């Protein structure tokens, strides 16, 4: 099953739309509540990243009977050093974003912690794509 969502730059009000919808689907599939939680936390984090750092993007979700695959692809400045960005506390968020309670530098590490597989590819000046996978079992 395929679902698609659009993420708009700076639209924090609508952060969590994709993760809420995915959450409902997984509950209907009788996925373990703790696994649902991991998926939702990771996806929400990715949504917020795309809203805060990029000029918008897309969330693509593919669900089958035993796993979920999520791709969050944004058009934006890209990440020059992915290894550095994966460190807890590292953040390039603008002050106004931090004032809203986002941008603590926990985004990517937190996503990594909650998923079974994660792959980040990025090109400076073009955008970033985060691919994540969570197994239901």
């Amino acid at each position, binding site marked *: 099953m395929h679902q698609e969502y659009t993420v708009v730059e700076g639209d924090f009000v609508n952060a969590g739309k994709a993760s809420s919808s995915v959450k409902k689907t997984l509950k*209907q*599939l*009788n996925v373990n*509540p703790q696994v649902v*939680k991991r998926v*939702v936390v990771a996806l*929400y984090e990715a949504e917020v990243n795309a809203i805060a750092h990029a000029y918008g993007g897309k969330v693509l979700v593919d669900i*089958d*009977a035993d796993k979920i695959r999520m791709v969050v692809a944004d058009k934006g400045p890209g990440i020059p050093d992915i290894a550095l960005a994966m460190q807890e506390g590292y953040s390039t968020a603008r002050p106004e974003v931090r004032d809203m309670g986002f941008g603590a530098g926990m985004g990517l590490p937190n996503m990594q912690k909650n998923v079974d597989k994660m792959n980040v590819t990025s090109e400076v000046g073009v955008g970033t794509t985060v691919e994540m996978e969570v197994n239901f079992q």
Partner: protein
Amino acid sequence: MTFYHALQIEDDRCIGCSRCMKICPTEAIRISGGKAAIQEHRCIDCGKCYEVCPAQSISIKDDDFEMFRKYPHSVALLPAVFMGQFPDEVSVSQVYATLYELGFAHVMEVESAALIYKEAKEKYAHEHPDVRPFISSFCPAIVRLIQIKYPSLTENIVPIKAPLDLSAMYALEELQSRGVPREEIGLFYVTPCAAKVSAVKAPVGEEKSVIDGVINMNLLFNRVYKRMKENGKNHQYKPLTRQRLSADAILSTLTNGERRICTAKRSYAIDGIENVMDFLDKLENDEVEGVEFLELRACDQSCAGALLSCDNRFLCGERMYSRARKAAERERNGEMARDREMDKYKDYLIEHSLVDEVQPRSMLVLDEDRVKAFEKMEKIEKMKTHLPQIDCGVCGAPTCEAFATDVVCGKAYMEQCVFYRLHLEAKGKMTLHEGRSNMYSVWGDDRISGEIEV
């Protein structure tokens, strides 16, 4: 598996107007044969349907009022909001005295146990520092809501008996310690809502409640108030001294009542089922950080706005505040509240306050087998694209999505959709007669009248 719920729709009164179906927060109601029906696994007894029904066809299953007379030691266990029902000129002691006149051997307000409940709750929270936020178990409609809709949060509910159960246990212990045999004791809970009836009849995390019967609060109010009118203005009520609740206990059933005395650092008090669902959606996504305690109540203004409240929720709430102010004044003057009498049983009650952990029972699961659930979901998604998505409710389900789910789960059939029927009729695949029969099967056969002249 069957699930108990206290709200009942009486078929001969139901006019099949579907107001209840549209307002139900858990989409638990469908229309069939011109009558509304509750799907028990989805009902949390919040009572939204009860409030909106224009035909008074929804009732709350209570026990026979006269049942208490069978017990020499009948105990009326009152919710504190009961006192908030009476006009200002009626005093608390007059209400107590009238209940004795009506035949109750003992009268007790269940909030007497509010502070012991608070201690038991915080003790549990202290012993389980990894469970945050901890969610109050006070409102049974909320406990059931979390079970069916927010399964990942069931472990956050404090598995502690509510004040009403603790009070009942206290009454039982106290009477038995005076040598009264159990069979002579009848514990009757006066309920302000449907959810508390379910909490007594089918408690979550326990085998059986100690309470022997339930009396609807509005019924008891009528009996008491009638007796007072019959007594007349000059009636001498028996003076009573043992009816003092502390201010904290009186306020505990109102919104913020638990939160204001809770020692947790960051906490929220949320009332109204829609507000609660909105918040729990965020909490489930981990969007709310650092919250330690949640007081969640299904009714707007908490128990002052309970279903069986006989008066406006704000009037009732203010009367309770007024009583609490007087109680606080007395406490400042050194007078001891009745709650303290319970203190000698405090350790016993706290020790016996624990129930089993609340288990999830998701209403959303399409099938226990995930592969089958997945197949069903794909069918639902496909079907949704053929439905008008205007949630008209003519099919007898509250939304197009709920209808699609019903069809895929074999609880409804596609031809119930009026748009789909028109499509079939236009294609010559269904006769007008068949179409009308389908309409009858949902809405009954007396809805379509003759031609109307304007």
